[in-house]
Structures are given as structure tokens and as C-alpha cells.
């Protein structure tokens, strides 16, 4: 008697990584509900490190929301010059 193996072939790294754009768009590792994806992550150190790093980068990106750069003073001067030609602009008495 030949026994049929009903379990699907294990997912390869390439197949797993193809799913990553959608996986992260859905919320990252915590949103994994596909058993074959979970199984691959449990057994593959490389893909586990990759997912952890990509999640880390996405988390760290949020700190860039706080600005680091400041425009030069000439920008405000040019804005004021532009505003002066706007009919509804009531010029302020003091320079900024």
C-alpha cells in the first residue's frame, strides 16, 4: 500500500519572501494567519531575521517624523514677498 503524503511541501525562502510585501501591508508578523508562512518562520532563521529587521526599520522610520532640517531665513522672506501680492493679505507690522 502506498501512503499518500497529504501535507503540502514546505515553503521555500523565495516563496516566503514573495509574500512579504502583502504581509507587511497587512500589519507585519503579528498578522500572519497562514500556517505555511508561520511554519516557515519557525524553521528558518534567515527569514526570521529578515522579518525582524524589516519590522525594526519600519518602526525606526517613525522617529524620522520629527524634523531635523530647517529652511534658511530667505525662504520666509520670499514667502512674505509672495504674500504681499495676495489681495487678501493683511501685512503684519513687525518683521518675523
Amino acid at each position: 500500500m502506498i501512503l499518500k503524503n497529504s501535507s503540502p511541501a514546505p515553503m521555500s525562502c523565495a516563496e516566503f519572501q514573495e509574500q512579504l510585501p502583502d504581509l507587511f501591508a497587512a500589519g507585519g508578523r503579528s498578522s500572519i494567519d497562514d500556517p505555511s508562512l508561520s511554519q516557515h518562520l519557525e524553521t528558518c532563521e534567515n527569514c526570521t531575521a529578515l522579518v525582524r529587521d524589516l519590522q525594526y526599520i519600519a518602526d525606526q522610520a517613525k522617529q524620522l517624523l520629527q524634523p531635523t532640517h530647517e529652511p534658511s531665513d530667505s525662504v520666509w522672506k520670499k514667502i512674505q514677498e509672495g504674500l504681499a501680492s495676495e489681495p487678501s493679505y493683511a501685512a503684519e507690522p513687525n518683521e518675523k
Partner: protein
Amino acid sequence: MEVQGLQMTETKTAPGLFKRNPPIAGEAEAIERAKAGDAEAFSKLYALHKRRVYTLCLRMLGNVSEAEDMTQEAFLHLFRKIGSFRGESAFSTWLHRLTVNLVLMHLRKKGLQLVSLEETINPSEEDSPKRDFGSRDTQLAGSVDRVALERAVASLPPGYRMVFVLHDVEGFEHNEIAVMLECSTGNSKSQLHKARLKLRELLRQSESTAQTDLKEAAL
């Protein structure tokens, strides 16, 4: 002034954006006064938002001179359009959307077609992130500082940088980015994934260089 491609009406914003862009003290009053043409109030709004608008322009354009020009454009446009702000989203979210649209329009005028990111600003093979199958000891140390991350983002190819800044930094959703860039949501997701892969590669190189420097300094 109606400008092609600019969405000056407010769109429904993801609740997270209110969390990421909480109201600033005195901002609501300044907005109302600026709507009436009050120059001092507009000056206050400029002082409150100039850094974030300029930083956004700089990250999208990668050029100080163009970033300053677009910051100027964004605030002049803000003055003309502030009357249409109804407070349904955070003011900074609305202002950033206005800025992003202006920058994208500027890039299109320069001849950069944003319709298909894959075909037009797809990086060269050399710039593409490497696939990561089977290599070991690949994990980031988990202590990437802001300066290193900022530098890595600045060195991303333009298409990757654009989507990364809009999604991961500014908090726009893929469907919003797809509308802004006139591409599919799948394209936006794919570009973002490639951007993060490329950043990982750049940050690992940066960590490796820092470790080598430390070892050399210790000798």
C-alpha cells in the same frame, strides 16, 4: 488657482494620523485667524510647521535648493487654500498632503513620469536590494541611530525613497500613495518592500564599517 493633480479638498484620514499628528497648542486659533488673512497668524503657522514641511520636501527631492523652493510654494499655496481646511483631519496631515502633491507635480513638470514607478525610476541592478536566501549572521544589531537611518534613506534610489518617506515616515496608506503616484497599490507595496530591503543592506554596511573602525581604533 486650480492646479492639475492637486487635491485641495480634505479626504478621510486614517485614525492613526491624528495620533501621529496631534494638535499643537495655539494652532487652531492661528488657523482661524489666518483664514481671515491675518499675517501674524500665518507667520505663526509657518514657524510651527516650517521644519516638517521643509524636511519632507528635502527627503522627497534630495536637494536643498529645490526643497526650499517647494517649501516656499507650499506655504504660498497654503495661504490661498487655508479657507478650505475644515478640521476633519489634523492640520499637519492636510498641509503635508498639499506639500506632497506640489512636490509630485514639480517632479512631473521636470519630466519624471511617476505613472509607473517600476518602469521610470526603478533603480539599476546595482542599486536593487539583494535577495536574501540562505545567508547567515544577517541580522541588524538593533541599535540603528537616527543619523545612520537618515543617511541611508537619503541614499535610496528616488522611487524607493519616495514610497518609504510617504508610507513609513509620513504615515500615508498604500491606497493614498497609489493615488498620489498614479500607480497600483501593489506597486506601492512592492516599492516599499524593496526600499526596506535596500535600507537593511545599507544599514548593515554602515554597522560593518563602524565595527571595523572601532577595531582599528583599538589597535
